């Protein structure tokens, strides 16, 4: 069966599966697993993607389908209550959920179109009001803290500091922690890859002087894949992994990109 739709059109393996089911006009509850598996595998064969992340997701689904296919050939498993277990059950549940949220997404989209017809206004607070600073209400400000309590707070604060001084370990000599600056390392690796365009992973690792540095290098490479600056390939098993800078990323974007932004934001959010 020829399938001409491009893979890019699919968000992921479930999406593709739903498409096949809808295309064949099949009841989700009664998926002809053999046919669908064949079509699905056909699809994957056409995949011309070098992106291992994407490919692995589709392959995992293929494996699931084949697993179900096998189970259906064997005598049905039975639950404690003696009911037959349909091996498709879990997949059906997942597909239904996906279908349901797709439907909800359409509904939300409609709603957002209607809601966009309502217009709000920016605050127009009169200057006198905006500038007005009410007198501080010290009763509320200090709550129930009185002198005795203030003294207690002070003592507790001091005690906490004492607690932090570990009487045993504080007598040890200093142990220097090896510091590897993640940002500096990222900067270096980015520059290096940009300059060389293609770099072998081993080549990158050879520049590391400690185990920690190897780990950091590895993490940086993972992050760069995640934010879409590089892609990796391996010709065959045990070959060196080749790192390529993604072609359509500009120099500015490439060198300016930050990794780990998300984490920083999170930290800022939780501080006061």
């Amino acid at each position: 069966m020829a399938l001409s739709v491009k893979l890019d059109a699919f968000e992921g393996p479930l999406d593709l599966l739903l498409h096949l089911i809808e295309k064949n006009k099949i009841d989700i509850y009664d998926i002809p697993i053999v046919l669908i598996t064949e079509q699905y595998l056909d699809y994957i064969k056409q995949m011309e993607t070098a992106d291992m992340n994407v490919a692995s997701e589709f392959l995992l689904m293929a494996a699931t389908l084949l697993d179900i296919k096998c189970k259906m050939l064997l005598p049905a498993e039975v639950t404690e209550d003696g009911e037959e277990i349909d091996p498709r059950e879990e997949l059906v549940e997942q597909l239904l959920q996906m279908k349901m949220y797709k439907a909800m997404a359409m509904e939300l989209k409609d709603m957002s179109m209607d809601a966009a017809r309502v217009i709000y206004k920016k605050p127009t607070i009169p200057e006198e009001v905006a500038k007005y600073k009410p007198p501080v209400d010290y009763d509320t400000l200090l709550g129930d803290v009185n002198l005795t309590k203030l003294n207690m707070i002070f003592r507790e604060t001091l005690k906490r500091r004492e607690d932090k001084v570990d009487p045993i370990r504080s007598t040890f000599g200093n142990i220097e922690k090896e510091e590897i600056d993640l940002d500096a390392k990222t900067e270096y690796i980015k520059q290096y890859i940009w300059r060389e365009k293609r770099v072998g992973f081993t080549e990158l690792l050879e520049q590391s002087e400690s185990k920690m540095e190897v780990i950091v290098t590895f993490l940086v490479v993972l992050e760069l894949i995640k934010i879409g600056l590089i892609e990796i390939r391996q010709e065959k098993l045990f070959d060196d992994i080749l790192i390529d800078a993604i072609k359509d990323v500009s120099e500015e974007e490439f060198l300016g990109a930050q990794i780990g932004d998300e984490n920083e934001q999170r930290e800022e959010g939780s501080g006061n």
Partner: protein
Amino acid sequence: MSREKKEAVIEAILFTMGDSVSLDKLADAIDESEETTRKIIEEYKNKLDNSGRGITVQELDGSFQMCTKPDMYEYLIELTKSSNKVVLSDSAMETLSIIAYKQPVTRLDIEKIRGVSSDYAVNRLLEFDLIKELGRLDAPGKPILFGTTEQFLRCFGVGSLEELPQFSQVQMAEFREQAEEEASVNLGI
């Protein structure tokens, strides 16, 4: 303060602030209980809605915000050029609907349903202030829990999450029926 004056104060505050104002603040301003304040607001909103006015009041999760009526849109759009239209990709919209209906959810929950990594969509939604972090789940890795924001309610024109269309068992059954009817080709397996 007369009842009329109270209504006037609420009107003035909602107009000035532009943004949503919580019920308790409004109640404080007119020195009334939240219950009475809510009644006054509802009455005021009714008046606006039933008398051919151009503005109305929208409830957003216990807060209130003044806005134009939807049928004013065509007259306004040219003048204001302001639009709160959300243009989201299908995958972001799917992710949003999962978060809206299943909140609080983790990234993993979303991924399990969609079958693909949804980091990009989640980040976009955070950027648009449609979702926010609600805290962390008490599980290994302490994953972040996400939920929808007030901006979400505004963008979809609902006053609270309860007003979202519900996905009923009936609908699920309909889905099934439809699918069965559609199954015109017997694939014989």
